[in-house]
């Protein structure tokens, strides 16, 4: 029952990247140049400060890691200005991350005006559902979301479609809420396909919900809304 095979494992080709780590030699050089090392100071304007790793023996290497109660030099602080600055920098860091987190994978079919977005284990049933929908006359483009925070590619995908079905396996449409908070102007294009019956998502259920929504769009029937086939938040 539990014997499954995956594609053979492949070696990563990218070099390891630990980010802005400063070595003892670099600190020494900075000191000679009269440059100060400041643990939480946003020197490059991307919200990501330089850091040292334990084991770095330079006199200036060590610092104390704690929550947000510190200033840009890692000193304990209860000053509200320091606190706000830290949180604002973290916001900035999160925005920087949009460019670096894994990009979505987009699949298109000619002439499709309808988009489908999913993530994680919904991918395979969605793939099958898209095939069935195509057979029934509805072509779709697809975006596989692979990371948060959401990036520009995803915004463009939503903006390029009249209608986007966002498939997720929970009752409340939590991912749709994230989209709508990021881009309220695109919110009306998003319809949630929600699966939360305790069973694995199936292509059949995804097709059923999308068809019901399409039928409503063409007939204008309010019925589906009352039946809460699709929860829109």
């Amino acid at each position, binding site marked *: 029952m539990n014997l499954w*095979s995956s594609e*053979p*494992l*492949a*070696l*990563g080709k990218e*070099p*390891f990247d630990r980010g802005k780590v400063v070595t003892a030699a670099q600190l020494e050089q900075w000191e000679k140049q009269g440059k100060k090392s400041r643990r939480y100071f946003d020197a490059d304007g991307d919200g990501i400060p330089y850091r040292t*790793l*334990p*084991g770095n*023996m330079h*006199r200036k*290497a*060590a*610092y*104390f*890691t*704690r*929550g947000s109660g510190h200033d840009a030099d890692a*000193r*304990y602080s209860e000053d509200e200005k320091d606190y706000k600055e830290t949180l604002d920098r973290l916001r900035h860091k999160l925005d920087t991350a949009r460019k670096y987190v894994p990009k979505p994978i987009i699949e298109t079919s000619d002439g499709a005006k309808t988009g489908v977005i999913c993530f994680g284990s919904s991918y395979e049933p969605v793939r099958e559902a898209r095939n069935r929908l195509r057979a029934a006359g509805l072509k779709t483009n697809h975006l596989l979301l692979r990371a948060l925070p959401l990036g520009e590619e995803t915004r463009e995908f939503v903006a390029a479609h009249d209608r986007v079905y966002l498939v997720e396996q929970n009752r409340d449409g939590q991912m749709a809420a994230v989209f709508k908070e990021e881009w309220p102007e695109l919110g009306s294009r998003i319809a949630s396909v929600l699966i939360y019956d305790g069973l694995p998502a199936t292509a059949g259920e995804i097709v059923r919900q999308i068809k019901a929504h399409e039928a409503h769009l063409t007939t204008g029937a309010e019925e589906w809304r009352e039946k809460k086939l699709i929860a829109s938040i």
Partner: protein
Amino acid sequence: MAGEKVNRIHLTEKDYQGSPSTMCRGCGHDAISASVMRAFYESSVDPRKVIKLSGIGCSSKTPAYFLGQSFGFNATHGRMSAIATGANLANHSLISIGVSGDGDTAAIGLGNFCHMMRRNVNIAYIVENNGVYGLTKGQFSATADKGSVMKGGKVNDIPAIDIAELAITFGATYVARSFSGDRKQLAPLIQGALAHRGAAILDVISPCVTFNNHEGSTKSLKYAKEHLDPIHDVDFIPHHENIEVDYEEGKDQEVVMHDGSRIILHKLGKDYDPSNKMQAIVAIHAAIAEGKFLTGLIYYDPTRPEFIEDLNLCETPLAELGQDMLQPRAEMLDQINAEFMK
């Protein structure tokens, strides 16, 4: 400064200080910090090779108040043991000192704590035990004794967790108990914990003078002082000091540590052998029954391998290995893939 006393690596006691403390005046935790500084100074440990780990609580704040030249990590509440395990795996060449509270360790962090000891992670782990959640204003913790009275008058009717007994049961290999005010006993016990390779747990009674120092509390300064029951006086002789000790037959016991350092235990009446696990647990229970705090080196087992030995880790810390060492070669991966296809 000319004439200032230095240790073997030419550091003064000042070099072991941290930021000024924000504890309440008279808090036991500050006294423990003083013993920690003394121990590191006396053992001539280079602060740059030390990592200080803690959780959340008044006690967990204290690593900021000693060893200002060491890296420090304030984990989330109760999660220091897990962070310490990870840090030890990432770089076992660093010396770990953990400071936690009875709430941090025995309430929210109990599961993590037990697994860290089960793995015999190399750390000197101090529990600054005041029987309450000091930082959140004095609620009972899991080490509050049955019958102890809270500041507002509430009586605790749930039995306490004994950290020393727990530590022995779960596999810690150096288990001691002491009192914050007894630097003479505490500092050498910390030195011993630093020299030990494996999980060294020190349960240190540390009165919270603001929320748990009243009549009816069994962790007040007065109560603790009146109920201490030391098994022995403790001396620590670092491996680099070639001191001859005059042993008194039947009274003094020498414990040799992994690095050649020695702990000398001067017995106080009782015949006690810290390598005897059963005896240790019986002694703890006997003390509990008498309402006493058994202090000293309660249990010591130098034979059990520490976690990284069990895992057969290489000598170079993982954090210092490059990609060439951390990634398998292509042929090796092919072999692994082929294994799966059989």
